[in-house]
């Protein structure tokens, strides 16, 4: 073996030395300032015209709990409808068929282009346009009986959500490499089967963060259904303060519940993300 050449002088061996910790004075000072400001805000609210006993009393009132249940039921159902519509519309949008493409684009245009609260009011007041609805000769009913606040809210929120979700889904499908479609075709899959088995599962990984966003938005958007008498959280809180005039206290109750629900949704989203990240981490398993 050839001997290594002698190393040059003047470069000491640092292998035994540790890296010193920096004091980070600025971080300490700024953190202290922020704590002070927060304390001042808390103090202001504690001394303000708020009867906190009302907040704690109504936080677990039956009507409020029913409201939060109705809010969650509506958010989950409307989101499910939105995702279903979103997937179908995204597939239509990416189809080679110009009719399907145009229908999909028109749907997105219409339901993204008008305010959600307006759409809710339109669904709820459908009876003004069509006094009776049904299938001619088979079944018919008075629209006021069919179009309950629940159904109007579900249709309004779900169909509107579908328009947004379709764009999220389309982005996810476009993010999957074209080679994946080709490989699926090469083993004899048709377009829809390739989408369902190969492309959508991979797109899910990309769309879950924006869908989580959309779902959080949906939980809060259900509060708009209060204008069409759907008994969700905000609507019930309003009904209470119409009776006892404790407006701010009940709004705080509602706000705390929304915050609590949304706080639980974030870890839930992380669980879903892990499920769909299969195979993407080198050390998975």
């Amino acid at each position: 073996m050839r001997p290594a050449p002698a190393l040059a002088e003047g470069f000491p061996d640092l292998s035994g030395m540790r890296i010193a910790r920096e004091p980070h004075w600025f971080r300490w000072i700024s953190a202290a300032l922020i704590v002070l400001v927060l304390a001042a805000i808390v103090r202001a609210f504690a001394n303000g015209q708020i009867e906190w006993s009302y907040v704690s009393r109504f936080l677990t009132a039956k009507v409020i709990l029913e409201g939060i249940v109705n809010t969650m039921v509506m958010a989950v159902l409307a989101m499910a409808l939105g995702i279903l519509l979103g997937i179908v519309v995204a597939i239509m949008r990416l189809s080679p068929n110009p009719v399907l493409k145009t229908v999909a684009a028109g749907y997105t245009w219409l339901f993204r282009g008008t305010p959600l609260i307006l759409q809710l009011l339109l669904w709820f007041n459908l009876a003004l346009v069509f006094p009776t609805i049904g299938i001619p000769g088979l079944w018919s009913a008075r629209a006021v009986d069919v179009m309950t606040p629940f159904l109007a809210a579900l249709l309004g929120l779900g169909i509107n959500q579908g328009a947004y979700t379709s764009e999220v889904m389309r982005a996810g499908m476009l993010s999957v490499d074209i080679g994946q479609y080709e490989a699926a075709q090469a083993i004899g899959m048709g377009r829809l089967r390739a989408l369902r088995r190969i492309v959508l599962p991979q797109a899910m990984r990309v769309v879950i963060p924006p869908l989580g966003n959309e779902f959080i938005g949906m939980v809060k958007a259900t509060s708009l259904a209060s204008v069409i008498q759907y008994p969700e959280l905000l609507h019930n809180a309003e009904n209470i303060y119409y009776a006892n005039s404790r407006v701010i206290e009940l709004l705080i109750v509602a706000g705390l519940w929304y915050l609590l629900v949304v706080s639980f949704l974030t870890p839930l989203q992380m669980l879903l993300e892990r499920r769909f990240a299969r195979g993407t981490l080198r050390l998975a398993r």
Partner: protein
Amino acid sequence: MTKPLVAIRSVSKNFGEFQALKNVSLDVWPGEVMCLIGASGSGKTTLLRCINQLAVIDSGGIWLDGELLGVREQGGRLHRLGEREISRQRLKTGMVFQRFNLFPHKTALENIIEGPLQVQGRKADEVCAEALELLRRVGLSAKADSYPAQLSGGQQQRVAIARALAMKPMLMLFDEPTSALDPELVGEVLAVMKELAKSGMTMMVVTHELGFAREVADRVVYMDQGAIVEQGRASDVLGAPREERTKAFLSAVI
């Protein structure tokens, strides 16, 4: 008299202004191993993609196992086949891609059984047994439960070969199967392909591995600018090329 497995007649294919294939005609015989060589853009990959209909030809015709691909003749006109028919025709060919294109959300075994289970609707236990045998054949028995991201490029390409073989194709198409691999991983993939050639599989291989072509190919086809310039036995085309363009290409490559 035997018939060619693939008969390509006067096939042209354009991408906008660019003529990818110009009036190409070629026969591939059962059991033959054919290597397609040529510079990039010469049309060899396009020809392969036309055979399994990932690209649609503009004119001419391709017959696979006696069946006209992609279109049906009726009343003196050609009618395009529906997606279902095209999928059925694709089952006769297996394709191996330059960039492997394994399904990243499925394990090696799941990649292999996906087609037989979902497309051919065969029984799971039978398909799994065959898939494990295929994995053994490509030397990856230990990797059945690994995801593609946990495999080296060479291992991924061998899984991709097994995935294509699982559909029991009559013809295997290889689109530059070793071009995306680190040099030390090329050998393991070529070894699997050699074994496959020995087993009597009909193969069309687009490749830059002239050593592989010399050793394994029954016929070498040299393409340039969308046309076949020269073809023949590997020793002739690679050892004693007649055309000037072939000579120029070979001297540039070697």
